[in-house]
């Protein structure tokens, strides 16, 4: 079925159009992004249970962007009265003019930027979804997750608890200018198994997830992860510490995705080019990885949690080849950075929610697959590890450092898995060296959308990333 577009947004659309008309008297450009997003979040464990209508993206609100004298400004609110758009126009002008008075008194100059184009465009997209979060049978979901938690507990005698999380979010967004009218409705869902284990004082956390551009029917796939999580938990409890050093590694698709995200996800967000905060700006057209390294970014790259039709600035979704057989081709760009850099926006202008500024952000960041079987990859390793599961990562676009925290390493000696495991692992290195060392890639490719991405240490948005199994060299500690 189609994910129906928000009746609320359709109802306020004429009044928001009137708000734009009123503001255009004072500003050279006016756009409105209005959101009405619903959600469902259920968390069941042995010790606590909760149901909420809240996910990180649930919101109903409006942000207006205006432009005058080379300067952009925004006003966000969630109390719009469609009977009186003139009052909101007065409120907006009052707030922004008070800010300008302060800036003038402080002698602040604008970072002058051209005005955004406003070519006529209409779009009305309702993507397919099975069951919307607002229509879900919550009782059935609670019972299903409860049964999964019970089954998870039975799979590992050291389990302290088995938490099952399920979230579904129905996003409805409307982007309006004088000449543009874009509406989209889509649903994404995420499910996760988190098992807490303890043996003789050693506490470990095993985790796996599913995600996709779909409704709550995704929750049926959470159970597929139970056995693997229980087995991972056992491996973590038995793991030793790694001897620090440089190793040959094979990254699982999830770890490959983390590398993609941290290496040339953040590294080519082009608002960082404007600020001269990314080394990538100086390396366009140059080699940053091996011939086996091709990376895509965009809302159209995967059917996962960020598969929108247009971004939060009204730019249509894209699919960018960031790295083509090792050569850095381009980055991902929001609309204002594109104006400043003289390039086309790529559909990557995203906001944490309507209250927040739009930045150049990732959507789905994916390594392309290769032709090597996992068996051949393992057989080719003399001394190294197969890395599985992720904890966190951190970017360093200015210096191309990378930090990836990996859950588990499976030792490989002379082409064979030895059965010895190590955990946890911190992988660090210099991005071009890491990507330049990619020597094998499997045909199997997956995306993972259970996580969130921050910009610096804030501005959380949903993203997915992934890739195939990759063989490379890295420093592990």
């Amino acid at each position, binding site marked *: 079925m189609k994910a129906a577009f928000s009746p609320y947004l359709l109802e306020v659309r004429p009044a928001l159009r009137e708000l734009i008309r009123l503001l255009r008297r004072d500003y050279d450009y006016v756009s409105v992004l209005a959101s009405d997003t619903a959600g469902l979040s259920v968390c069941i464990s042995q010790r606590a249970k909760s149901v909420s209508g*809240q996910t990180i993206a649930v919101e109903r609100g409006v942000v207006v962007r205006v432009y005058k004298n080379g300067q952009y400004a*925004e006003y966000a609110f969630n109390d719009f009265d469609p009977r009186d758009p003139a009052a909101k126009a007065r409120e907006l002008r009052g707030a922004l003019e008070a800010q300008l008075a302060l*800036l003038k008194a402080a002698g602040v100059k604008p970072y002058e930027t051209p005005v955004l184009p406003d070519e006529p465009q209409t779009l009305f997209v309702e993507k397919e979804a099975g069951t919307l979060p607002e229509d879900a049978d919550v009782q059935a979901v609670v019972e299903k997750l409860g049964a999964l938690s019970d089954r998870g507990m039975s799979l590992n005698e050291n389990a302290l608890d088995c938490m099952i999380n399920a979230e579904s979010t129905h996003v409805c967004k409307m982007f309006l200018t004088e000449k543009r009218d874009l509406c989209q409705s889509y649903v994404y869902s995420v499910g996760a198994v988190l098992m807490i284990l303890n043996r003789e004082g050693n506490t470990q*956390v095993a985790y796996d997830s599913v995600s996709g551009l779909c409704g709550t029917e995704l929750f049926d796939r959470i159970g597929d992860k139970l056995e693997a999580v229980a087995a991972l938990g056992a491996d973590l409890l038995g793991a030793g510490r790694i001897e620090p050093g440089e190793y040959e590694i094979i990254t699982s698709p999830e770890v490959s995705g983390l590398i993609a995200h941290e290496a040339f996800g953040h590294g080519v967000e082009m608002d960082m080019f404007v600020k001269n905060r990314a080394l990538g700006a100086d390396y366009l057209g140059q080699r940053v990885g091996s011939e086996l390294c091709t990376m895509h970014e965009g809302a159209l790259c995967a059917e996962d949690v960020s598969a929108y039709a247009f971004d939060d600035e009204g730019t249509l979704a894209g699919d960018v080849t960031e790295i083509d057989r090792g050569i850095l081709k381009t980055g991902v760009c929001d609309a204002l950075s594109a104006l400043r850099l003289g390039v086309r926006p790529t559909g990557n202008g995203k906001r944490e929610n309507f209250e927040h500024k739009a930045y150049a952000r990732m959507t789905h960041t994916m390594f392309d697959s290769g032709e090597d079987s996992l068996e051949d990859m393992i057989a080719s390793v003399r001394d190294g590890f197969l890395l599985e599961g992720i904890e966190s990562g951190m970017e360093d676009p200015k210096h191309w450092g990378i930090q990836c925290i990996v859950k588990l390493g499976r030792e490989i000696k002379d082409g064979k898995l030895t059965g010895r495991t190590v955990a946890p692992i911190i992988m660090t290195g210099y991005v071009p060296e890491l990507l330049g060392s990619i020597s094998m890639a499997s045909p199997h490719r997956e995306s993972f959308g259970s996580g969130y991405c921050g910009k*610096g240490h804030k501005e959380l948005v949903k993203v997915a990333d992934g890739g195939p199994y990759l063989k490379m060299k890295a420093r592990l500690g």
Partner: protein
Amino acid sequence: MLEKITGILKASGVYAWEVSDVKKQGWEFYFIRHALDQHRAKNVEHINVKVYQLTDDGQSLGFASAELAPTATDAEAEKLVNDLAYRATLVKNRPYALNVPAGEMPGTGAPSDLAAISGDFIRTMAELRETESEDVNSYEIFVSDVTRRLVTSTGIDETERYPSSMIEVVVNARRDGHEIEVYRSYKSGTCDAQALKRDLERAMQYGRDRLRAVPTPLTGQFDVLFSGSDACQIYRFFVARMDAQMVFRKISPWAIGEAICEDFQGDRVTIAALRELDNSPANHGFDPEGALIRDTVLLEDGVAKHFLGSRMFAGYLGLTDAFLPSNIAVSGGTHSEEELRAGQYLEVVEFSDFHIAPMTGDIFGEIRLGFWHDGDKCIPVSGGSLSGSMDDCIGSMRMSRSQTQYDSMRIPSLTRLKGVTVTGAEK
């Protein structure tokens, strides 16, 4: 809208309910160098509704929650309450007591002057001492006037108003065509101009140091000294282990009245939750569930004194005076800074992301800038990582008597951990 939703809740016949209403007026300014990228203002309200249902036999207490848009119609508000009333019956948790009025709440605060606070930040950044080789790359200023009200069916009706600010700054240092960036973010009530200038000038110094840093040459186990805000992660680990949820879930092995370590060779940490900390962005009289925030000692000389946490898990542990802490103060250090800076040690002042996993105690961090101290030698180093286990470090941890405040935490200025694994970056 608040009156409308509380009226619907009162008429709904649900067992109990809570409504949190947070109004925020915010001003934001984004700079590229010192030119204004854009300015933003916001005027928003977030109403969160939570409904509780007790089963007829009194054996289960469930809850469900959702946000109600300020623009919701009467029908939408009615539907939300009906949905929550039903969903709460599906959730079977062990019963626990809900918070009731504590009778000692502080008064409502005054409105914040957004223009004055914003102006202080803007002027402070303009006055920062920059040179040809060290300067500001970009910064973002966020200033809010927050009004927070909590109304519950048990009689709590409290309001507080306070300023909340945040500034994120990136500074650069360059030499011979090579440029370094250092990232900082600060949360506070209002602008502390002196502290901001002092720390940003230190950040520029770190940029200069990183330009001459060599790849970290060490691999093995070393003493590591933390002299910046990353040390807050160390103390957040202790606070997490004192959280009622962690205790109830048996993730934290700590018990009231017992030492958290069998064999202390170093300092014994004392940690308190405080209602007020100077210019903290988290000076709250009551927590999100309406519990009174009191000055409370969590750990004293390495012995667990009080667990804190949400009402649900605190209730399961039989705690009647628990709350979700906001400000944290750490003491217990017995050493002068000179004593902690003696001998061989690696001082790490910049990480890409220093992290201690609260459940496992695992330590991670990529070194962006450190100093290898060996007698009179002090070598700036960069690259490689730290790893280890906080559980292995508790007994030998040493702290300075001097203290420094970062956002909502006041901690020892120096913290020295023994036997941390360093993976160097030298080829």
